[in-house]
């Protein structure tokens, strides 16, 4: 999906992607020797350096810390990265693979939403590759043959402006309290904004619905509206910081980044609601089948999926796919962990499949404006 609109990551996933299991790659340990291209593999580094360059596309420098990731990669390997069209969308990324095949400036690797990863794989736009750390990528977040693999994900959270909301709400039930009258906002219409759509999905899961049934989420927001707690204003960073929308249901990485940005000005808490399975969305890496620099692309993937690359994602508040594995091994610094919400919910997030998303969209289109009356 789009990187251009930083508030709208996709809410679509793969049919069988139900959860991000902590020990995602259970039985794959035996196969470790089979995919043995390690990041320290001198031959790969040599081949990549011989190609001399890497073409990436649609990586905004302030999104998931890509700015720092790219400069670190360049410094580490001395391979220059050409990042085209930083604000392009997933659809445009696939289009440039198609239209620039055979050209030296075509993209080597892409970062796309899961539904676009599926399209790319079915059209044969990707080439398979398995990074050294393949086994610790949760099974649900990768294509078995290595055509695409999830890189980072986010969860639905409450961004709370603590100078207006004196106590932060900890659960979906808390949002019903009179203390939050006129405070609870989405980042737009759930029919148009990805995070708002995800918010209704998350509310549904917490209120007796499921990935397959978004209606309880619509009912929940209809109730918030009746109570006067739902504020239909489209929340923006400005309205959160200024306190016009003191409780914004949005992606955790956007709330966390906003909190960091407004430090010293206003305290913004990021709360992943308790008492329900959290709802999330992730992005995927894939190497173009027509990559002009295939070895550099492989090295890039090795770098992104190494502990170093994954921690760089986390420093941009995007939870890397290997998060659970790294928490278990204790490789994330205490200081960084302290900046993040508690890790437990990240191990049990639910992701909707394309079919579930489509069903939810139809239910939303038919019911949202009819049921939610402010």
């Amino acid at each position: 999906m789009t990187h251009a609109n930083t508030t709208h990551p996709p809410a679509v996933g793969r049919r069988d992607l139900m959860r991000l299991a902590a020990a995602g790659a259970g039985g794959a340990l035996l196969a470790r020797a089979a995919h043995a291209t390690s990041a320290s593999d001198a031959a790969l580094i040599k081949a990549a350096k011989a190609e001399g360059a890497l073409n990436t596309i649609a990586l905004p420098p302030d999104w998931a810390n890509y700015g720092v990731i790219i400069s670190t990669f360049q410094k580490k390997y001395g391979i220059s990265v050409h990042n085209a069209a930083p604000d392009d969308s997933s659809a445009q990324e696939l289009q440039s693979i198609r239209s620039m095949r055979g050209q030296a400036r075509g993209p080597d690797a892409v970062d796309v939403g899961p539904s676009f990863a599926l399209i790319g794989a079915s059209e044969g736009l990707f080439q398979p590759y398995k990074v050294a750390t393949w086994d610790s990528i949760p099974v649900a977040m990768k294509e078995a043959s290595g055509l695409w693999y999830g890189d980072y994900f986010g969860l639905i959270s409450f961004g709370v402006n603590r100078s207006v909301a004196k106590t932060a709400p900890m659960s979906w039930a808390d949002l019903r309290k009179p203390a939050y009258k006129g405070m609870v906002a989405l980042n737009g219409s759930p029919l148009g904004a990805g995070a708002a759509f995800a918010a209704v999905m998350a509310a549904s899961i917490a209120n007796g619905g499921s990935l397959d049934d978004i209606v309880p989420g619509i009912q929940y927001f209809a109730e918030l509206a009746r109570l006067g707690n739902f504020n239909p204003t489209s929340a923006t960073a400005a309205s959160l910081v200024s306190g016009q929308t003191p409780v914004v249901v949005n992606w955790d990485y956007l709330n966390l980044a906003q909190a960091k940005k407004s430090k010293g000005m206003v305290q913004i808490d990021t709360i992943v609601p308790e008492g329900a399975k959290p709802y999330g969305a992730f992005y995927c890496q894939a190497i173009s089948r027509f990559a002009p620099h295939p070895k550099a692309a492989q090295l890039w993937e090795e770098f992104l999926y190494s502990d170093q690359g994954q921690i760089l994602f986390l420093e941009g508040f995007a939870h890397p796919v290997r998060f659970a594995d790294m928490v278990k091994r204790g490789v994330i610094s205490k200081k960084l962990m302290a900046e993040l919400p508690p890790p437990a919910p990240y191990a049990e997030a639910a992701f909707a499949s394309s079919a579930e998303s489509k069903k939810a969209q139809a239910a939303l289109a038919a019911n949202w404006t009819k049921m939610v009356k402010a």
Partner: protein
Amino acid sequence: MNRGAARPGSAGLLARPGGALTLLFVWPFLLYVCAFLILPTLMLLATAFRGGHGATWHYVGELGQTQTLIAFRNSIELSAVSALAGLVIGGLAAYFVLRPGMPGGLRSLVTTFSAVAANFAGVPLAFAFIATLGSLGVITVWLKSIGVDLYATGFRLYSISGLVIVYAYFQVPLMIIVITPALQALRSEWREAAENLGASSADYWRHVGLPILLPSLLSAYILLFGNAFSAYATPYAISSGIVALVPVEISNVLSGNVMLSRQTGAALAFGMIIVMVVVMALYALISRRVARWSRR
């Protein structure tokens, strides 16, 4: 007031003196109209009526769905009411400012402010209202502190009536700008003549002032209607689409990140064109009646 006076002669443009020159300067305009109005409209129609397997009524047929009908009703209601508010308030404001004896400074103050305010729209305008009259806005909170709970009275910024107030912010100034020249064209001699013949102020307006102004008022109304009908960013920022409006629905299916359907978007836009065509046809009908005398 001189409709028809500019009707081109029967001879071709080129046959007239300066005709070639006229063409030289008109063709870029025609090209422009073609590139940015006619071609996109044709593309729009093509998209709305074409499915995966050739021509289809499917997407245009979808306009009959309840939620779509609600969006059209809301859009039309909001546009009609906010245009009326702009027409009445802006018209009266312009009239009183232009009255003889008003300080010239006031007039330039009002026109300058109008020129700025008429162009103040979109997200900044929405935020200005959210920060003042929103449920946690400065004015709302202040009123509450002196014992007036605005939202307990049923007022909602994110409702049709709330949006009318917001739209008035650009509708009224726009009305002042467009109606001022027509008001200035009302000659004081006409009024003096009417008064000499024994007309009261009400008589003058009923028989002279309003009939002369009516065509201008009508076209101003159409302009305001269209202005509100197409507004998108402001209502979206204020209501997140809780008040279903057609432009918001279009953006949901065209540039949203949740669903994507170019055809549905094109069908909705086609519906908007129909509404505007009907409104313009009504306008043409009425203005022909009311302006009949001016052609004599």
